[in-house]
């Protein structure tokens, strides 16, 4: 809880809900006739609407990126370290837009919203949404806000995939594409981990084939397990050892099955927290969106060809100990961009935090990110 708002915070913010009534046809072939998106904005849109930055969220993210909803909030938004006055994404200069994606569980239309056709929550009947669907919905959001071209679209992890998709789907609507700790598609191992998470959720007796809302139940155990296995992939082995080692909670081995090592209780706590705050159907959807992301697939698996559609400049960053989306995966994007003759800067940040590093204000990370955002602001760089 902040006793006072830090000077480099966007301060107290409130979300707003926008309603869209033009049907949106999704990649799966189904159509959403009406939907709502919850957003937050920080900073001021300039007269020619040229300073807007879109922030796309990752698997469990949402629209609350920076600042506080009330003085009682325990923590600020999920990327407060990078968004605010004087920060990398400087709200003194940029108009920042963040949203909760379609299919989310933080207010935008998703599985826990009411299905107008049945009057009941969509549940498992909510269509599977993909990265490209999100990008289309974000383009409609831009239209509604009077923004034709984003100064930058920014995202980490699954958010980075949306930024990358923007560069290909709406080449003339994005000047800079910022892709942090992402990959051009999931590896087999990534998909395997996602499947473990999905199985944990769907095999939970309280899941009721996704209709748990009607039973007033939540597949809490499944969600918790899903989050625990996910969380392991967000940390690095070194980071985990440094933070928890083999520390025992009570200082001795108890010869029973209660959590004894610190890492056990940490993961349980994380899983527990998550399972009370996140919707299981949304989790399933998000992991599917990750699995399906593969922009090169339509181009004979040639990423260079796929990215040849882009017209913007790129900033790609990865973290040395990230094994979920390792530096090699970012380098695949960089290599393809060079091959396609696109403007690109790439940095590999030394960090012990694994995939989670993209959310942590590591000094060198913030320094290069700020330098690049300054270039976005001043229009520096030389697009040919």
């Amino acid at each position, binding site marked *: 809880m902040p006793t006072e708002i830090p000077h480099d915070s966007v301060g107290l913010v409130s979300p707003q809900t926008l309603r869209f009534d033009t049907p949106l046809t999704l990649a799966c072939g189904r159509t959403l006739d009406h939907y709502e998106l919850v957003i937050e904005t920080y900073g001021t849109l300039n007269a020619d609407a040229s300073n807007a930055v879109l922030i796309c969220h990752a698997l469990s993210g949402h629209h609350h990126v920076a600042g506080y909803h009330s003085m009682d909030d325990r923590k600020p938004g999920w990327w407060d370290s990078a968004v605010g006055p004087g920060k990398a994404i400087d709200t003194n200069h940029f108009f920042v837009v963040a949203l909760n994606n379609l299919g989310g569980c933080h207010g935008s239309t998703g599985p826990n919203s009411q299905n107008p056709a049945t009057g009941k929550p969509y549940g498992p009947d909510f269509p599977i949404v993909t990265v490209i669907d999100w990008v289309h919905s974000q383009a409609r959001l831009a239209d509604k806000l009077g923004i034709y071209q984003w100064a930058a679209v920014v995202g980490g992890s699954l958010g980075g995939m949306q930024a990358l998709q923007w560069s290909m789907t709406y080449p003339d609507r994005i000047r800079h594409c910022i892709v942090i700790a992402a990959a051009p598609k999931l590896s087999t191992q990534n998909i395997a981990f996602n499947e473990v998470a999905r199985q944990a959720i769907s095999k939970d007796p309280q899941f009721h084939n996704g209709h748990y809302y009607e039973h007033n139940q939540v597949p809490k155990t499944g969600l918790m397990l899903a989050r625990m296995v996910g969380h392991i992939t967000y940390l690095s082995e070194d980071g985990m050892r440094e933070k928890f080692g083999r520390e025992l909670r009570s200082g001795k081995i108890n010869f029973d099955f209660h959590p004894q090592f610190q890492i056990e209780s940490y993961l349980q706590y994380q899983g527990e927290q998550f399972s009370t705050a996140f919707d299981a159907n949304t989790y399933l959807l998000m992991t599917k969106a990750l699995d399906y992301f593969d922009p090169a697939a339509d181009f004979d698996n040639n990423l260079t060809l796929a990215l040849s559609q882009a017209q913007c400049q790129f900033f790609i960053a990865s973290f040395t100990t990230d094994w979920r989306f390792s530096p090699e995966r970012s380098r695949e994007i960089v290599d393809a961009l060079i091959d396609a003759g696109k403007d690109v800067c*790439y940095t590999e940040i030394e960090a012990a935090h694994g995939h989670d590093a993209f959310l942590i204000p590591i000094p060198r990370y913030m320094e290069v990110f700020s*330098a690049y955002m300054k270039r976005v602001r001043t229009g520096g760089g030389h697009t040919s």
Partner: protein
Amino acid sequence: MRADLEIIREWIQPNSRLLDLGCGEGELLEYLIKEKQVKGYGIEINPDNITSCIEKGVNVIEKDIDKGLVSIRNGSFDTVVMSHALQTMHRPDLIVEEMLRIGKECIVTFPNFAHWRVRSYLSVRGKMPVSKFLSYTWYNTPNIHFFTFKDFEELCVERNIHILDRTVVDHEHRHRWWIHLWPNMLGEIAIYRITR
């Protein structure tokens, strides 16, 4: 701009594709992008240099050149430049081969270890030369391979590398007419333009 870069930039064709290996703060690229509209990329490993490149609006890729350039396609650049970095590579010969694979032409500059001042330093003092230009001591120098113009040209003959141009200058990168009387003795820095 550093004087060797001034010489190199004259050899770069407008609108060409350029890769600068060990691009430092990106000054060569910045000039060529602005003045010759090249599509250029720099490869660099030093964090401060990378930030400088980003600030200049230069495309910079963080990469350890010693780990290879395999992901870059054959012949995908018109020119590949390596200025004052070949002597810091683990295997200069393999790097030159890689440069020639990627680039249609390559430009390499390096300090000449057979310059008379270096020779006399070593022969008179019996110690590894330290000068304004080679300012490190033997144990902390990034310059791990010392070689001479003659050595480099022998490598070119051995590997069928064709030398298109050679300029030899002093440590301030000035042309001196007398250098050409005995380049391997009198020249401090060589700038070679090579191809397959």
